């Protein structure tokens, strides 16, 4: 992922690569687990564990908790994930509107699920330019002195209509508000997504050993939505760390280089 993409989509700090973050159930230790690391979301997480399904019974309560709270960096050093999260002071959602009452709240990312965007890299040029599909839209980003090509996923309109009719869809991205709003105003002018959440609504996870950081989504922050009625769709495994029982890891079968694109 190039530098500009990181700025727009994942915040302004260097990104921790997934390969550098490892859960390692073999190296769990109680010292890490017993650390006192209060979090606004922690109580809900505990609730998740209490209600875990029977087929997970082989996972002990303490192991599951420790797994969720512990990462092991590339050097094998333990870190308690909650001790490295910045607290969010004002992240909240308004109460559910009447038209959505009884529906499941669906938290969806923007990039890589609804569409792909390509932002040319000033150093690498256009070498990543997709080969198999014309872009759907070009978005000017003068604030960042660049532009982006948007590639909508096939069946995007059908999908948006479906979630509009059946869920309370909420956009939850790790991207910059200015960038996200520009794109969402194009693909969702009628506000199928009544609310948009941005990187400022995420925890900031800092990997102190690598002097790097990553935004981390936490749907448990929004306590005026029932934990029984929340789903996080997510392509980045790091983001379901906090709410694994409410998450669907989104397998990305869509890339710039494969041939799953349709003709325009």
């Amino acid at each position, binding site marked *: 992922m190039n530098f500009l993409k990181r700025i727009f989509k994942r915040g302004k700090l260097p990104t921790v690569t997934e390969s550098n973050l490892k859960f390692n159930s073999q190296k769990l230790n109680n010292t890490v687990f017993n650390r006192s690391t209060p979090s606004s979301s922690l109580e809900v997480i505990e609730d998740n564990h209490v*209600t875990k399904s029977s087929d*997970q019974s082989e996972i002990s309560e303490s192991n599951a908790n420790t797994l969720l709270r512990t990462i092991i960096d590339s050097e094998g050093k333990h870190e308690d994930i909650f001790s490295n999260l910045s607290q969010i002071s004002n992240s909240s959602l308004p109460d559910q509107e009447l038209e959505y009452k009884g529906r499941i709240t669906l938290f969806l990312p923007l990039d890589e699920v609804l569409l792909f965007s390509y932002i040319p890299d000033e150093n690498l040029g256009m070498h990543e330019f997709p080969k198999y599909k014309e872009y759907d839209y070009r978005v000017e980003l003068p604030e960042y002195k660049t532009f982006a090509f948007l590639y909508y996923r*096939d069946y*995007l309109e059908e999908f948006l209509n*479906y979630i509009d009719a059946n869920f309370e869809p909420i956009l939850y991205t790790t991207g910059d508000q200015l960038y996200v709003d520009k794109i969402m105003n194009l693909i969702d002018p009628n506000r199928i997504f009544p609310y948009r959440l941005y990187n400022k609504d995420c925890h900031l996870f800092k990997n102190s050993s690598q002097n790097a950081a990553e935004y981390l989504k936490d749907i448990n922050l929004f306590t005026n939505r029932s934990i029984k009625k929340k789903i996080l769709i997510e392509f980045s495994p790091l983001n379901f760390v906090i709410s694994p029982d409410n998450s*669907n890891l989104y397998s990305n079968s869509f890339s710039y280089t494969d041939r799953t694109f349709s003709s325009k």
Partner: protein
Amino acid sequence: MNASEEKDETLKQLIEMLEIVRKEDDVRNILSKTFNLRQIAINSKLL
């Protein structure tokens, strides 16, 4: 540019999954069993 005739079915598949999940009183019942990310994380020493 070359254009493949094959369409990306990802969003259609996502609709199929959501159609199952949305009927649940507690989404965790099916998400934790079907996708079981907690178990996947442990088995694969995830990330």
